[in-house]
């Protein structure tokens, strides 16, 4: 039974059975039949003990060789079957990759252009060392007018189309601030020079058309120290506008004007090109009025408890909504406050689109 021919026959038989096994179960049955406890090869190996040393010397290696070869063949076949099974499974596992996925909240959420522009403005001025100060929307006559050198009854007050509240028991009536300048006074009263800050905020005037709404937003900037002059003002505005509009050649024109709280007072135009409804900053032959500014009036410093003979500086103010409209080509101011989802999705910004100086203000 253990002669060479028999073994060869046995090997051929099992080799065929292994090759013919179509699945893992059949293959396992072959393994048990050959190498299991009562497998035919195992049985033969059990017989080795009863053999004479000579017989064993010949049969031992032959049987061990057979066992090793069958083990290898089984293993190879097992891998092959495994591979084939996997391939068969995968060939049935299929999806339509063109099916649409759900939009993630990150895609559907939006930041209002006003907030976006506000973050841009802060990024620029923070780099120039400006703090951010805020104040209340409901103001007193004192902070909105008197402390800002608007005398009682002065025609300049009438230019402001002020919203007033019903008078209280004492007859005093509060108002909605017509500009962010009251924050200048509140901030300077509460602190000590030098100052360098911007104040953003919502402001109100009784006015309504395509470019005026009863509420709008301003950003005001103030620098007070012992040396800051109009040249610094011009530089600050140039650098701000260059950074904000993300164009190189910003050219400014300062014109004398009048605001009660600055002296001298100026309006600032920026060079632009008008192409139909589009306005391009930094090119062309036209001028666009963009902000008002001046040197803080000595009376305002005095009203804020600051010695105007020692301290001086500038203030400027511009419409946040307006610069948002200019930069992003938004045609109608009224739409800012209508909360129309179509408008917000179109003109709004993604949550992660955070403006930075390092990465650029807008993408």
């Amino acid at each position, binding site marked *: 039974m253990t002669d060479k021919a028999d073994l060869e026959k046995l090997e051929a038989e099992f080799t065929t059975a292994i090759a013919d096994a179509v699945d893992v179960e059949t293959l396992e049955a072959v393994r048990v039949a050959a190498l299991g406890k009562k497998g035919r090869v195992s049985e033969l190996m059990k017989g080795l003990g009863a053999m004479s040393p000579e017989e064993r010397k010949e049969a031992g290696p032959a049987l061990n060789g057979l066992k090793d070869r069958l083990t290898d063949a089984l293993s190879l076949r097992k891998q092959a079957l495994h591979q084939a099974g996997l391939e068969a499974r995968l060939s049935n596992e299929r999806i339509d990759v063109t099916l*649409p996925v*759900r*939009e*993630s909240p*990150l895609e*559907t959420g939006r*930041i209002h252009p*006003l*907030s976006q522009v506000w973050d841009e403005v*802060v990024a620029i001025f923070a780099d120039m*060392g*400006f703090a*951010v100060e*805020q104040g*209340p*929307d*409901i103001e007193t006559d004192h902070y909105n007018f008197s402390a800002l050198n608007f005398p*009682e*009854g002065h*025609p*300049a007050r*009438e*230019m402001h189309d002020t919203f*007033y*509240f*019903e008078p209280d028991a004492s007859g005093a009536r509060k108002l*909605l601030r017509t500009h962010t300048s009251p924050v200048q006074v509140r901030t300077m009263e509460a602190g000590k020079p030098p100052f360098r800050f911007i104040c953003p905020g*919502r402001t*109100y005037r009784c006015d*309504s058309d395509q470019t005026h709404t*009863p*509420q709008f937003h301003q950003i005001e900037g103030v620098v007070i120290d012992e*040396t*800051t*002059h*109009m*040249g*610094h003002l*011009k*530089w600050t505005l*140039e650098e701000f506008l260059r950074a904000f509009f993300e164009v190189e050649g910003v050219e400014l024109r300062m*014109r*004398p*004007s*009048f605001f009660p709280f600055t*002296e*001298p007072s*100026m*309006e600032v135009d920026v060079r632009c090109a008008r192409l139909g409804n589009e306005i391009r900053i930094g090119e062309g032959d036209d001028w666009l009025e963009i902000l008002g500014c001046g*040197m803080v009036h000595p009376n305002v410093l005095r009203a804020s408890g600051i010695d105007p003979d020692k301290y*001086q500086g500038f203030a400027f103010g511009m419409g946040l909504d307006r610069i948002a409209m200019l930069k992003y080509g938004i045609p109608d101011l009224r739409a*800012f*406050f*209508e*909360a*129309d*989802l*179509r408008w917000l999705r179109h003109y709004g910004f993604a*949550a*992660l689109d955070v403006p930075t100086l390092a990465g650029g203000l807008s993408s």
Partner: protein
Amino acid sequence: MKFTLSWLKQPLETDATLDEIVERLTMLGLEVESVEDPAKKLAVFSVAKVLEAKPHPDADKLQVLKVEALVDGEMKQLQVVCGAPNARAGLTGVFAPPGATIPASGMVLKPTKIRGVESNGMMCSERELELSDDHVGIIDLEGHWKVGTSAAEVLGCNDPVIEIAITPNRPDCLGVYGVARDLAAAGLGRLREGSFPPVAGTFESPVGIRLEFPAGAENACPVFAGRLIRGVKNGPSPDWLQNWLKAVGLRPINALVDITNFISLDRGRPLHVYDAAKLKGDIRARLGHKGEKLLALDGKEYNVGPDMCVIADDENVLGFGGVMGGEESGSTVQTSDVFVESAYFDPYRTARTGRDTGIVSDARYRFERGVDPAFVLPGLELATKMILEICGGEPSNLVVAGKVPDTSKLISFNPARIEKLTGLSLPVTEATRILTALGFGVKDEAGKLAVSVPSWRPDIDGEADLVEEVVRVHGLDNVKSVALPRLHAVAKPVLSIRQRRERMARRALAARGLVEAVTWSFVPERHAELFGGGNATPGLKLANPMSADMSHMRPSLLAGLIAAAGRNMARGFADVALFEVGQQFEGDAPEAQVLAATGLRRGTARPLGSGRHWQGKSGSVEAMDAKADAAALLLLLGAPVANLQVSADAPGWYHPGRSGVFRLGPKNVLGYFGELHPRILDAMDVAGPVVAFEVFPDAIPEPKRKATRAKPPLELPDLQPLRRDFAFVVDEIVAAEQLIRAARGVDKKLIVDVSLFDVFEGGALGEGKKSLAIEVTLQPVEKTLTDEDIEAVSKRIVAAVEKATGGTLRS
């Protein structure tokens, strides 16, 4: 303020071109708003002659003219059909060739046939060229004009009209002369200073003048001068005067009125003329009396107030001082004796009278900004001279009551101020030259300048004002940019915690799929009331709202957001997720303005997506969606989330059973969330369900600033955590949080997490019961837990939960 170029060139001797003048005006702070050159619109119109006029064969009122005209540089004879009654052979008029645009109608002429007869071009009337309202006939030019001469030249329309905006601080430029003074100071010509020698009277004025003010109100009209001129012949004023007035938009009325209007526009000096025959006794300036009325020149009747300064005779109020005269005492073409008034009225009282009456007039505009008090008498002399020249007559002596107020000011001006404020270095001589040219008196006193302010510049008070005068005339374009010194090599952070939270709130909510809205700060009263505002909070109602729908300051951002959701639904967008971060008002004090981060979700606009989708539709929004938004926001804003309490007592605008409040301690409310009350949605006409949240970032305590930025060391236990599940049957009203806290509290070291993974109601549990299942995570630190250890802690958990909730372990 409007004037023509030729008018400006009366007081300003200059060779400057129109463009140079316009540019300089703007750079002086007299911003040019428009320049209109009437010659431009008349460019294609020219003089033509009617050679022949024959009746139209087919129309009684039409004639067929043969007209000689210059067309495209060629002399032509053209056939023109014309309906004007004055058309005749030999008439010289103004011709519009085919292709011309008629200014009045905007119509473009084309060769055409009128009742079968060819017509090429048109003979024009004055109305068609916007010269006057005359449309009776075509223009019939006097004198000999060559055919082809430009119409602008013939019609005297070649005088450009300049309109400038005058800021309220520059009343001196409300007269052409003042504008000329600025231009001359800026080097654009020479100012021709007028002189106004007193006109000798030939008799005493029969009309006297009195000032009758109570003590304290004398400044209402400190000086009042006048003079009677008798035997004037009032009629149309001369062409030059009419042309200028028309060019700037004033209708010529009669010579007397035109003269006062001219002096008002030319010198910024308002005057008034009375028909002396209609006066009863003396003229006086006094305060008004209650019950008095005035029929003003605008044809309207006004009530006189006791604080108003009026002009009156013995019987009637004749006018509001500095604002408007009366209809009845005004001059007409029949007037033969006139009384001319020149006075100074207090700006503030004039402004108040103007506001109270609502009258807008050239006089008010000037007096409330401040006219030159020193020009009261020169203005009267100028008016007298012009009236005598144009209307003839005989002047009385002057009558003057009161005296010209002393407005003189002397400013000690350190010229170094100029460079300190502007960065511009310019010689003192140049500053002195500019100030002198503007009419200031300048004396050098030991390095400082003693500057006296001219009477026409009420706006100049101190050194800063003088600096402005010098730099604006010298040219602001000379100011050079100078870098603002950098405070820190690397910029320091500037935002406060509140400001950082405000932006974090925006980005966080947008990242959760909500869209940021910015809505109005004011809401209708009925909406304010829905959210605890309205009459409940006094001081938040506007006295002069834009409209009834914008009457109250919002007590909650929800009012605007719900209305916005409704508008979007009406446009076909049913799934709305909006938020706003902004101010809401609990009162009118600064601290009553509260920052809120508020959002709502409507329809199926749930946090993970909205609408139908092949992977499953999202379903309707739920109160828990709003809780998730609020909780995520609170966490990101730095609230100590583990210490927050949630209770079911949200304000009345939330669903009473499906809403909650986040608190830190018993009083500090950090936010609300839940389904909105159906009553609110009904009132605002918005279909639900709508869930919402309101978070108040300022209520979150500020974190303590730590000494270093280092985070605490990370301690990783070597042993594996193990997890055990428990389910308890409790009464339906038991809050899940109670159960979780009880389990958590058993061993705060060992139990590192308790999560609730199942809520089950009904079935075998029976009415009023529910099952809550939790997974408890145990983290052994020092040694592996034995079965006995685990058993012991499990027992304690069961005991603690049963004690806290009255429930039982579900078997």
